[in-house]
């Protein structure tokens, strides 16, 4: 989560180009993040509002801090390279009751393993996934493609020119990641498993 980084950078001097007060910019940023269907990037915010990226950053972080400070039912999250307004996790039961939704079907262990291999080894081909998992992954790959969590990323210049797969933006959104670098390093898992 991003809360820790917020407080330190609050004092960045904001000099709005247009005659906007910092508070006004925070409000504007909130309005745009609210109406955006997808996580909205700093770049887009800066373009639309014709402000410096630093000013936008300060405004976004100010906004996140405000949500945090007043214990809002909403939180500002950095997801898939952009910012998003979402409900707080602790209210999930009530929100779900209102929306009348149930948690969507979980991925099978096989699909999760396949996804993990693709996420860490991308771009990766089917035979390479087989090599690591020791089992055919065709059904899992189809499931992941259907759920738009992975996408084909060209073909490998090898015998048979197999299709290479990689994770999608949807993957970042569904797994709450800012970007792929936020995934813990695979070597960390090595330490974890060796410790057992």
């Amino acid at each position, binding site marked *: 989560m991003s809360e820790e980084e917020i407080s330190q950078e609050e004092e960045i001097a904001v000099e709005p180009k247009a005659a906007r007060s910092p508070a006004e910019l925070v409000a504007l940023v909130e309005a745009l993040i609210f109406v955006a269907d997808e996580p909205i990037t700093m770049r887009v915010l800066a373009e639309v509002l014709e402000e410096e990226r630093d000013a936008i950053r300060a405004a976004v972080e100010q906004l996140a801090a405000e949500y945090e400070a007043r214990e809002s039912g909403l939180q500002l999250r950095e997801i898939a390279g952009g910012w998003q307004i*979402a409900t707080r996790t602790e209210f999930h039961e009530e929100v779900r009751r209102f929306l009348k939704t149930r948690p969507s079907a979980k991925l099978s262990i096989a699909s999760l393993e396949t996804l993990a291999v693709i996420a860490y080894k991308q771009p990766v081909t089917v035979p390479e996934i087989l090599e690591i998992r*020791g089992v055919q992954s065709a059904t899992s790959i189809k499931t992941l493609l259907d759920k738009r969590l992975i996408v084909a990323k060209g073909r490998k210049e090898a015998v048979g020119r197999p299709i290479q797969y990689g994770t999608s933006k949807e993957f970042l959104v569904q797994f709450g990641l800012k970007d792929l670098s936020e995934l813990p390093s695979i070597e960390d898992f090595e330490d974890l498993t060796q410790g057992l």
Partner: protein
Amino acid sequence: MSETQDQYTFDFNKEKAEILRDGSDELSIKIGDFAGPLDLLLFLIRQEQANIFDIPIARITEKYLEYIRLMKTLDIAIAADFLVMAATLIEIKSRMLLPRDPTQATEEEMEDPRQELVDRLLEYEKFKTAAGMLHERATIEQAVFTRGTAETDGDNSEVDASVFDLLTVFQKIAERHKDEIKMEIEREEISLADMIRSIKRRIFDEGELSLLKLFEEMHSKHELVTAFIAVLEIVRTEHIRLLQSVTFGDIILRKGESTA
């Protein structure tokens, strides 16, 4: 999916039917929560409390084959991956039983036959743990909700209706309209003769007349019945054709060609 609860009480025949539907990849989970041969092997090593760097290959192979026998009646495609591992295990086991060739073996060449398998297991285990991490993240993420999609021109699907659909809706409106008709305060009685005359005039003036339109204009049950009888009478006595383009659609009264 609730396959996890049933893992010890599965019925092979029943499972088989499900496998055909779900595809081969999910099978391994259904029969005991194993995502593949490496997963099964890791489980057996854990269960035997063996050291992964010094696998008691004979014991593990035996356990593994026991499990394979249980699975053998199942889908061949999936069993194949497990059988490859069984073959690998047996091969390692036999290589370990062979006495080492003292003339050839230098230190480097005397690699443990289990080494490659251990490397694969360790590599696999990292991704298995990573899969667990993804699972946790997804679970947390499912507790977070974003605003619903705002309605824009983009999500409005265009009207997709045929002429028939439109007509059906139109007739329903017409029917509802008829139901609403209350007792008229000013009751104007119209005789059958007048009705016939008026309808005939309209047909001959306009060339054709929609029955639906005609009946809709009627203000009372009495008028409706009169109009209906008038239409029957007109059809019987005049050169009038009744046209209906769609079953249950509107009927058009059209002036007939002045043939004999």
